[in-house]
């Protein structure tokens, strides 16, 4: 059964990942994240944080072990079910991954348009998300015409426009200064208080200490401590 509807939002059991025969990127990862939690996945560059996130949105398939996210067993999920699974997630990247020829509003709407949502629903959700991220006044601007912080807020608005139950953020403040980084973290915190589970991968220890949330440390592909 793919949709298990179990309690934890994320469960990883004995997950290992090898990119080549003898290069093991992750080794025997066991990790649980409960629904509604805000968790930091912390570690230096190359520790395996991005790989964990890719496994969680099924951008990669583990070499061994099993992963359950939002009730979907990713080891058994069929390709035809992947789009439905991914509509329950919001993914945020360090490089924002905004579409350069679309405006802020179009970038946010894009997530809903590709799921075939109704025009009226798209308009309503996009307006709500732009208001919520403070981007209403920039909705007609192209990504190149707005600041890094605004670009990241656009990418967050795009990630939440489909009302996901889980947000996965991969180094979301990597390209931002400390003030903007904290602003983005507070945005995630506000999302979390509304019930959305948030998992943020970062190497910025200072930022993590300021937020006082649960921290999972990863180094050389292994979970060290919580």
């Amino acid at each position, binding site marked *: 059964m793919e949709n298990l509807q179990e309690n934890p939002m994320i469960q990883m059991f004995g997950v290992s990942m090898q990119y080549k025969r003898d290069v093991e990127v992750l080794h025997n990862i066991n990790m649980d994240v409960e629904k509604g939690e805000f968790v930091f996945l912390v570690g230096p560059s190359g520790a395996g944080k991005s790989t964990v996130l890719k496994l969680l949105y099924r951008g990669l398939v583990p070499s061994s072990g099993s992963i359950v996210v939002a009730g979907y067993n990713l080891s058994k999920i069929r390709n035809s079910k992947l789009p439905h699974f*991914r509509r329950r997630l919001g993914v945020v990247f360090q490089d924002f991954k905004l*579409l350069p020829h679309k405006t802020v509003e179009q970038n946010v709407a894009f997530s809903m348009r590709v*799921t*075939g949502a109704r025009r009226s629903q798209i308009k309503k959700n996009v307006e709500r998300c732009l208001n919520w991220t403070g981007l209403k006044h920039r909705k007609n601007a192209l990504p190149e015409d707005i600041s890094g912080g605004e670009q990241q807020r656009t990418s967050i608005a795009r990630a939440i426009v*489909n009302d996901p139950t889980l947000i996965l953020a991969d180094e979301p403040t990597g390209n931002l200064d400390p003030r903007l980084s904290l602003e983005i973290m507070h945005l995630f915190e506000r999302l979390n208080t509304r019930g959305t589970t948030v998992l943020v991968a970062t190497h910025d220890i200072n930022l993590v200490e300021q937020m006082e949330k649960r921290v999972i440390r990863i180094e050389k592909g292994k979970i060290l401590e919580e």
Partner: protein
Amino acid sequence: MAYIWSETFSNIRHSGLIGILSVIVIALTAMVVSVLLMVANYIHAELNIVKQSPLIVAFLQEGLDDDTRQDIGEKIKALPQVYSTLYVSKKDALEKTREMFSDQEEILEGLEDFNPLPESYEIELKAEYIGSERILVSNLKAIPGIEDIQYAQETSRFVRNIELVTLFIGIILGLASVVIICFSIIVTTYIRRDEIVIMRLVGATGLFIRIPLLLQGIVQGLLGSGIGMACLYGILYLLAPRFGHINFLPPIYIAAVVIAGGLIGFIGGALPLRRFIKA
């Protein structure tokens, strides 16, 4: 649906030079195949006229004396399929040729001294034997002194060969078009790779990603073949005052060429998608 069409035309715009090249190659393919089809069609029409007057020509060997020639004529007349015969001497053959090339007499100059045209018997078939010329031809071949025989079947074979050449060239050009469209779709998927990654991440279905790319191939194919047909028609229209009216293809052929262009586009669009668009 509006979104899918807007993405399709956006894809075509973004495919740039390679997209334009795809349309041009398909247009040229459609033009070449159409010209070949027109030639085959023209010969078919001429062949039908020939078939209406079932004339078989038996060419005689060089240097036969009068008795042998007459003897051959008698043998031909005696065949059950023959309705009438007409002897055509070398001189008569030259006269006939002169009539055919009356506006270009210079090419026949000097042939009085050395006439290469053979003597022949023109043979008319009895009505009940029309369509079974092959039997008569095999009987004629058995008569000594007959060197060669020409009849409508020969022309049929020629037309069939032209049709085969048309098919062969059509397939080669079609394959070239498929390859170019494949490149066009690959370039589009490369240009739009970020968009496709985001589409996948936010839960777009595979079909939702693939359909605009498939439509892109089909639209390029239809556009190319349509432009090709329009250009060919325009060229024939412009050439008409100089060379006289040239029959364009019948509507069913035009539709077939345009649809074939769309099909080529579909194949060219579908081939790279399995490889480049994964879950």
